[in-house]
């Protein structure tokens, strides 16, 4: 499915921005994944040195292998599910509207949209060491629509984006006041 199909793009509509969270914000999950990946080495070391009869038991070994396999497959699945949840949080800005697609969890998804001419105010925020270093942050949009507040989380270059969204909103307002 293309982005146009996803938002049911109108004929006069052009996509200005397709935004994900900044990839840097996924690094803590990668770090946790790597820690979980090497943790069994410590458990194996403990079993080998302090529970030698268990380690050498021919009945215990296949159970240990099956348990280890379940452990590794579980963390692969956790990593993949978290990535999908992270990656499917998207904001699509067109010359007509803003579509906010939030993947809360694997089985929970919300989609909201606002016409750009209804945007009243926009605030960008770059907060913290890493956010300043990699230039990502939040954009808060105040609207006159049924959803009064939109937040674009951890998007790249938020100051520039805020300006561009306000420019697009001003153009859309001109079109609607005709």
């Amino acid at each position: 499915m293309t982005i146009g199909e996803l938002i049911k793009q109108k004929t006069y509509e052009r996509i200005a921005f397709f935004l994900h969270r900044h990839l840097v914000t996924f690094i803590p999950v990668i770090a946790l994944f790597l820690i979980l990946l090497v943790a069994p080495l410590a458990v194996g070391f403990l079993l080998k040195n302090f529970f030698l009869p268990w380690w050498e038991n021919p009945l215990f070994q296949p159970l240990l292998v099956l348990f280890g396999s379940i452990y590794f497959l579980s963390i692969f699945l956790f990593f993949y599910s978290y990535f999908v949840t992270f990656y499917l949080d998207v904001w699509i800005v067109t010359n007509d509207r803003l579509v906010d697609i939030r993947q809360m969890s694997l089985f929970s998804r919300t989609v909201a949209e606002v016409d750009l001419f209804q945007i009243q105010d926009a605030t960008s925020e770059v907060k913290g060491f890493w956010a300043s270093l990699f230039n990502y942050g939040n954009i808060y949009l105040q609207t006159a629509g049924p959803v009064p507040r939109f937040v674009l989380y951890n998007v790249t270059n938020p100051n520039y984006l805020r300006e561009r969204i306000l420019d697009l909103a001003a153009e859309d307002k001109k079109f609607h006041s005709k």
Partner: protein
Amino acid sequence: MSIAIPLYIFLFIYLAFLVLFIVFFVFNLIHLMHTGGTTIVSLAVTILVFGMTAFSLLFTYNLVADTDWRQPIEINIANSFSNSY
């Protein structure tokens, strides 16, 4: 009192887990495809996870291929209880 549990029971538990794993993996993949998430980044992560999974399954198979799954595991319940007090 002791109970003998055949080793293959654990193999069945493992296979049940594998079914669950495949269901969730495919569900994630469908989610990505149906929501405009098929990009080079998502493709790379999918291939990485798929590769690691295939490697884990192959490695597991190599380690347990020669196991006689009909062997029973004896669990001594009386001893387990008396040891815990």
